[in-house]
């Protein structure tokens, strides 16, 4: 355990020096186009436009996609989600939150042995359907699950007040 930790710290040091070089002007740019998502998508507010770009509008719904996410999220800022596609030949998974200001949360491409399965934590601005679009063998498949958020996680609310326990009951 300790050995791993030491290695981590060493790794962080080495990465740090690379970071300095990056700041000198080697910022990655335009990587968005590479995987079928337009560069602007991550800043687009319109859900239908994004869904169209990602191929989700023509997609057929599929039972091969499992979305593991709580039905009720107590804290919109940290909503655990796991997406698993059992469709053969799944190449990519895109996660979209319909009611967020910026609907596209992430798109992951799997290759060379990467399993079409991903778990992370996402933000919800409020209660919203979560859409998952999977590309497999040139076809698009989708699945949807609605989540109710008690406290939104994208607004300008002050967490120090919202996190306080409620005084009533």
């Amino acid at each position, binding site marked *: 355990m300790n050995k791993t930790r030491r290695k981590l710290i060493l790794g962080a040091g080495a*990465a740090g020096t690379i970071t300095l070089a990056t700041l000198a002007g080697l910022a990655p740019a335009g990587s968005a186009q590479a995987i079928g998502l337009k560069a602007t998508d*991550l800043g687009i507010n319109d859900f239908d436009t994004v869904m169209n770009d990602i191929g989700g509008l023509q997609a057929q719904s599929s039972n091969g996609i499992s979305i593991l996410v709580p039905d009720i999220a107590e804290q919109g800022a940290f909503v655990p989600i796991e997406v698993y596609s059992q469709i053969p030949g799944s190449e990519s998974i895109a996660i979209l939150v319909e009611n967020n200001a910026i609907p596209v949360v992430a798109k992951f491409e799997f290759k060379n042995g990467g399993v079409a399965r991903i*778990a*992370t934590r996402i933000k919800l601005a409020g209660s919203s359907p979560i859409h998952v679009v999977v590309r497999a063998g040139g076809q698009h498949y989708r699945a949807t699950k609605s989540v109710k958020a008690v406290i939104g996680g*994208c*607004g300008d609310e002050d967490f120090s007040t919202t996190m306080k326990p409620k005084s009533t009951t």
Partner: protein
Amino acid sequence: MAEAMKIRADLSGTVAKVKCLINHPMETGLRKDKAGQVIPAHYITQVNAMLNGVVVLDGQVGSGISKNPFLVFWVQGTKPGDKIQVSWFDNMGDKNSAETQIA
């Protein structure tokens, strides 16, 4: 400068489960501070994972991922001693990476 990442890979059979914790503010650019000033957007745009130098996961990420992103992914056809490397890039040109051996 980017803070250290945590990464861990556990093997069951030939499938490795890789857990990765990144330190990052993930600001959307929509929030305001107490003075009413907009907090500038600062979020990760790209996450890559490599197995022995070969890309297995190519992720394009937006500000909808929570602060201090936690990412779990699975890689097939792995054996003990294989190297997994995860790296990220953000919209301000910062980046970081971490490497671990599958145990």
